[in-house]
């Protein structure tokens, strides 16, 4: 069986890759219902979580996912580490690779950081968010969550609402939803929709929620308060007036998603967060099994990876020819 070597972007994935990972996630869902929530799939493997940005659910769920698969996990956070002392990403990765991890899970404030890491280690690399670029594990868990609830996404209409410009979740989700056959519309203040996004993500653009009624799923994005002072939007009040998802705007048959953490009363009204249409809590649950499936895919899904030494000139030395044999 072929498995992917790294999970860097949704863009690199093919639909069969997604299907395979999500099927695996289904099988891991059962593990969570056991008394002892653990399988020996990755026993003896080492996974490094390297987080350059604060994160609660992504770092916790990757750590827990690794532990449920019986892997050894080391979590390195930017604060209190050599990263704070100005060590470069390259040096940090090469140092950590000397411990021979099979996988490195990295969250970075910079686009392309995970892809760069693959150049400096033999370990499998998981992008747990790179700048405003991509967040593929989030997109996979969102597809998983939706499919469990409504089945195939083919022909479904999904609206992604809010600050698309600054959102890696929006980019990865739009690509993943489209790959699975859904139609995607991004909607938000014109200043927070990047020019060229239609071609970039293959989606429709709307600046008003007027046509939201046609959506099967409403995926709201986190609206950060800094955006007001940066004059992307004039005020919180005007934003909520035009883009907040509340019980009036969300129809009874429409599903609501959000990557968390939610700004209550900003992008979402309290009544819809905990309402029957909300999949937000399910998304968090799905995060664990999908991340288990991702780690399994990279470390046990195909050929066994070589183990993560730092790349060096001696990595590929040919075996010596025995004396007396023809060379």
């Amino acid at each position, binding site marked *: 069986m072929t498995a992917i070597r790294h999970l860097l972007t949704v*863009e690199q994935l093919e639909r069969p890759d997604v299907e395979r990972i999500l099927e695996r996630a289904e099988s891991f869902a059962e593990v969570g219902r056991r008394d002892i929530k653990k399988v020996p799939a990755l026993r003896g493997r080492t996974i490094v979580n390297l987080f350059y940005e604060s994160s609660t659910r992504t770092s916790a769920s990757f750590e827990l996912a690794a532990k449920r698969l019986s892997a050894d996990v080391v979590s390195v956070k930017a604060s209190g580490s050599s990263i704070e002392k100005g060590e*470069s*990403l*390259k040096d940090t990765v090469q140092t950590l690779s000397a411990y021979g991890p099979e996988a490195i899970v990295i969250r970075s404030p910079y*686009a392309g950081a995970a*892809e*760069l890491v693959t150049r400096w280690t033999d370990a499998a690399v998981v992008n747990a968010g790179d*700048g405003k*670029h991509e967040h593929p594990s989030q997109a996979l868990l969102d597809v998983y969550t939706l499919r469990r609830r409504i089945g195939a996404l083919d022909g479904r209409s999904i609206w992604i609402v809010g600050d698309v410009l600054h959102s890696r979740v929006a980019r990865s989700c739009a690509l993943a939803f489209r790959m699975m056959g859904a139609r995607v519309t991004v909607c938000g203040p014109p200043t927070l929709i990047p020019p060229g996004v239609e071609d970039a993500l293959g989606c429709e653009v709307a600046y008003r929620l007027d046509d939201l009624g046609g959506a099967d799923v409403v995926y709201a994005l986190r609206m950060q308060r800094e955006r007001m002072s940066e004059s992307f939007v004039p005020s919180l009040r005007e934003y909520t007036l035009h883009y907040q998802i509340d019980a009036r705007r969300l129809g009874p048959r429409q599903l609501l998603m959000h990557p968390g953490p939610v700004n209550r009363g900003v992008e979402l009204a309290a009544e819809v967060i905990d309402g029957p249409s909300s999949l937000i809590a399910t998304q968090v649950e799905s995060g664990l099994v999908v991340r288990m499936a991702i780690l399994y895919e990279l470390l046990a899904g195909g050929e066994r990876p070589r183990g993560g030494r730092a790349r060096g000139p001696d990595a590929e030395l040919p075996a010596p020819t025995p004396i007396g044999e023809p060379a």
Partner: protein
Amino acid sequence: MSDARPISSLDWRGVDAPPGPELLLRRASVLDPRAGIDAVHDVVIRDGRITGLAEPGTVENGGAESIDAEGMRVFPAFFDPHVHLRTPGDEGAEDIETGSRAAAAGGYCGVLAVANTKPPVDGAADVLALREQARAEASVPVGFFACITRGMGGEELTEMADLAAAGAAGLTDDGLPVRSARVLRRALRYQRLAGLQIALHEEDPELSADGAMHEGTVSAALGLAGIPSVSESTMIARDAALARHEEARIHVLHLSARGSVEAVAAAKEAGVRITCEATPHHLALTDEEVRTLDSAFKMNPPLRSEDDREALIDGLRAGTIDCVATDHAPHPPERKEVPFEQAAMGVIGLETAFAVLHTELVVPGRLGLDVLVDRMSAGASAFDLELPSVAPGSEANLVLVDPDAAWEAGAQGWESRSENSCFTGRELRGRVLMTVVGGRVAYRQRQFAMGVA
């Protein structure tokens, strides 16, 4: 405007040295569009000048070095009004010796080094020190810009007349725009006393902000903050209006966008004394290259859309864009081996400029070879320097090129101390074999040197 002076009077190792030995290039295909020369000749170089263009095969070799140049082209050598030699302060990236060697290897008979060094070149003593260093180290003539504003701070003018007296080649805050219209207006007015050309990096920092690449479909896909084209074109329009108002002359550095070409064309139409340049990378590449987030493609201004590139090529052909400049910007690996957003902006370009444009524009028929040859050296006149020529009687500044040679950029290393080329690994056609400056051989390509030995 002062009278044009010879390029070889800029500072370099050859400035006070005797001219090289006599040199004969036999059966070379000579092209000098400005002089109306396009024929096969024996080229005779004596006492630093081109003394004759004779019928092929007619000149006897009287003890001179004789080179069989059959099938090779001879052009006026190139001139680059915009390079970063990183001296003083960042010699780990480049210095005058390595940077001028890279220039010689690219076919250049002269370069102008911009002033955003550490510290910036903003006083007469800085200029004099660099000139002295160039006389000891430089393989080709090097002129030095000084800053428009003290410390490139954008607020107080430098002692522009004193800098001119010290031999500065021009004034620029390149790396940064002159943000204040008031400050730039005063610099332009003061040009009546100082005389020096003022070269402008055009960018509205309010619009480009923390952008890392061109704003467009690719930046939308990558989630990178974009630098919109209007951040450049609006500043060009502003500064052209100021130059017109003050009857000053300006040179616009590194155009990247269609709107910028249009702004310069409008200014020229209105009679503004404005010249401008474009780089080989903006003429050959687009923002599609950035899709892989390879920091080799990070520079300022950024690579833009195919439509912008088309406008630059058309502008170069029409003469709206006066010349090619490389914006040669060396960086050590540690400033590039980081995520794209953190990476330093800039690429080296001297050693590949002609070959890249020959391969990407001339070979496919997008641009005439004569136009390219003209634009590769036309920048000299914007800075009061004589245009290189191969007409008899001219100072011998010429380049010998094998137009058919195929080579891989970077495969044999670089003369520059840095390797941050955005063309590494690319197959190129057309290679500089020899560069002659003031009659002296400044560079010989390695295999070619072995061939003649």
